[in-house]
């Protein structure tokens, strides 16, 4: 099914659309051709859009009750939790929503890694996606500071001190970030301002992300180009909309299981202690979604080196479309890459685990091995695999892997036969 051009049905629609083509846009979004073999891993884009909107809506509501001042911030959060009508719900949806947002984004990123969605002609989608991910991390970090608990304060101290590792100008940069000589009220105020701003920038980037997606169209699990204007694609609405909604409902079950039954499970109990600049908690840990990077930071036995490696671990992904030179997109047809992909997944999860442990003994050794492997994967293994890996033969069409299975055609005929006489017509 290919995309037809929008034809206005009424004079009014024609008048409007020729002046502002919103109706054409709406028509495009509905009829946008999607490969018919997209699996459930492809539903996370929609889930992520839902997450962003949820965070913006609950965030705007929380901002109506929150006070960004060191003397009042902690108390205003408790006020939201205890006094404001449904305040507890808004805050728990917002705080767990951040975790769910990251859970979904990690699945979305690893889906891209597995199926080679970052490869030509989709490099821009990937790079904009990474920019969104960076903004998400900055936003989440600043949001975690706002309750002004012990983890807020000391997390902010540790992360802003990363910039003091910059030679020569490090101290001026940190003082500029803080608006003082330590994390204090000016810091809290500006973090609040930026925490409110960045999600809207993210929203703008999401539009660019989707725009750049709609130029080449979706990748798919087989990873070969679909023939537009053939029966290999289906219109986005209602087919993908329904599939996305089904996945979203399943996702919401998990989301609200946390909100209602384990609302503080993903947070740290120390953040229910008001911030105290004189006492550092025995063990500072970031939120779970930043732990792999924290492990990399601590694995390097030098302050500047740790900071460089931590940032490099994200920026190396920008080069991925060129580091992975294999022409085959989907790992399904890359027997060796497929194995290394899972090693990478395990490594990142292991780094996440180690990020929550003290940096000593076996934990430190494992973190160093994990860090080394992470960079080896992207900088050495992928370029080598692109050159030497023997890939499996690609099917001619995205339909082939399904139809080529023995007996598949008969099964389809039988299935279609059951619906014969309803609305389906004759199966050929």
């Amino acid at each position: 099914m290919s995309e037809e051009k929008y034809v206005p049905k009424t004079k009014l629609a024609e008048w409007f659309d020729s002046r502002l083509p919103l109706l054409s846009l709406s028509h495009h979004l509905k009829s946008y051709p999607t490969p018919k073999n997209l699996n459930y891993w492809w539903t996370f884009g929609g889930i992520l859009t839902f997450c962003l909107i949820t965070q913006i809506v609950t965030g705007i509501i929380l901002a109506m009750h929150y006070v960004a001042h060191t003397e009042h911030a902690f108390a205003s959060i408790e006020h939201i939790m205890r006094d404001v009508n449904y305040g507890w719900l808004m805050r728990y949806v917002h705080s767990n929503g951040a975790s769910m947002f990251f859970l979904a984004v990690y699945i979305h990123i690893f889906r891209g890694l597995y199926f080679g969605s970052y490869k030509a002609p989709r490099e821009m989608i990937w790079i904009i996606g990474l920019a969104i991910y960076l903004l998400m991390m900055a936003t989440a970090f600043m949001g975690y500071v706002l309750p002004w608990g012990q983890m807020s304060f000391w997390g902010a101290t540790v992360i802003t001190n990363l910039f003091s590792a910059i030679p020569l100008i490090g101290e001026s940069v940190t003082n500029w970030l803080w608006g003082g000589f330590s994390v204090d009220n000016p810091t809290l105020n500006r973090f609040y301002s930026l925490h409110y701003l960045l999600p809207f920038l993210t929203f703008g980037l999401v539009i660019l992300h989707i725009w750049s997606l709609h130029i080449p169209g979706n990748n798919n699990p087989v990873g070969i180009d679909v023939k537009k204007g053939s029966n290999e694609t289906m219109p986005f609405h209602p087919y993908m909309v329904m599939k996305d909604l089904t996945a979203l409902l399943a996702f919401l079950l998990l989301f609200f299981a946390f909100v209602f039954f384990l609302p503080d499970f993903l947070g740290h109990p120390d953040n229910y202690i008001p911030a105290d600049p004189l006492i550092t908690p025995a063990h500072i840990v970031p939120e779970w979604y930043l732990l792999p990077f924290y492990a990399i930071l601590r694995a390097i036995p030098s302050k500047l080196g740790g900071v460089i490696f931590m940032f490099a671990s994200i920026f190396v992904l920008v080069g991925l479309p060129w580091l992975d030179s294999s022409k085959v997109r989907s790992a399904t047809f890359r027997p060796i890459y497929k194995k290394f992909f899972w090693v990478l997944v395990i490594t990142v999860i292991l780094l996440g685990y180690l990020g929550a442990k003290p940096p000593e003994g076996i934990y430190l050794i494992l973190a160093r091995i994990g860090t080394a492997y992470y960079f080896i994967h992207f900088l050495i293994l992928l370029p080598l695999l692109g050159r030497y890996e023997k890939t499996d033969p690609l099917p001619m069409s995205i339909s082939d892997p399904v139809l080529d299975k023995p007996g598949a055609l008969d099964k389809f005929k039988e299935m279609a036969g059951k619906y014969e006489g309803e609305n389906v017509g004759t199966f050929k």
Partner: protein
Amino acid sequence: MTNKIEPKRRNFLFTATYTIGAVGLGAAVWPLVDQMNPDASVKALSTTEVDVSSIEPGKEITVLWRGKPIFIKRRTEKEISEAAKVNLKDLKDPEKDSDRAKNPEWLVMIGVCTHLGCVPLKNKGEYKGWFCPCHGSHYDTSGRIRKGPAPTNLEIPKYEFVDNNTIKIG
């Protein structure tokens, strides 16, 4: 002739306009950037006076100066001699103890780990000085980094003895 001069004149005018424009833009952006730097009210809190008469040898107090904890430690003879006899070659950031404590009995330091800004714990670590729980930096009885990721010794703020019992920090 005029045909040849015209484009040159134009090029000059364009370049001059871009340059003036860039300077003007820079001047307009600077206040937007500089407003984030420490403001007058923050800078005004630049000195703190501390009465240290009640601190006994071996004890330490922590006071707040510019939002940062300041360790004021009255060291014992043993701690002073331990700090003094360390070989400078064993140090990551070589500094003599006598350069760090104007009066060897009193050690005044910014209690902020030079790694990533946590507050080190007193009387802990392998060198009996301070230990940072965040990422495992060990400091000796002179507050010098001995082991762990911190790059430099605990910083010494500007301070002076106003009289025998009072230290002015800042």
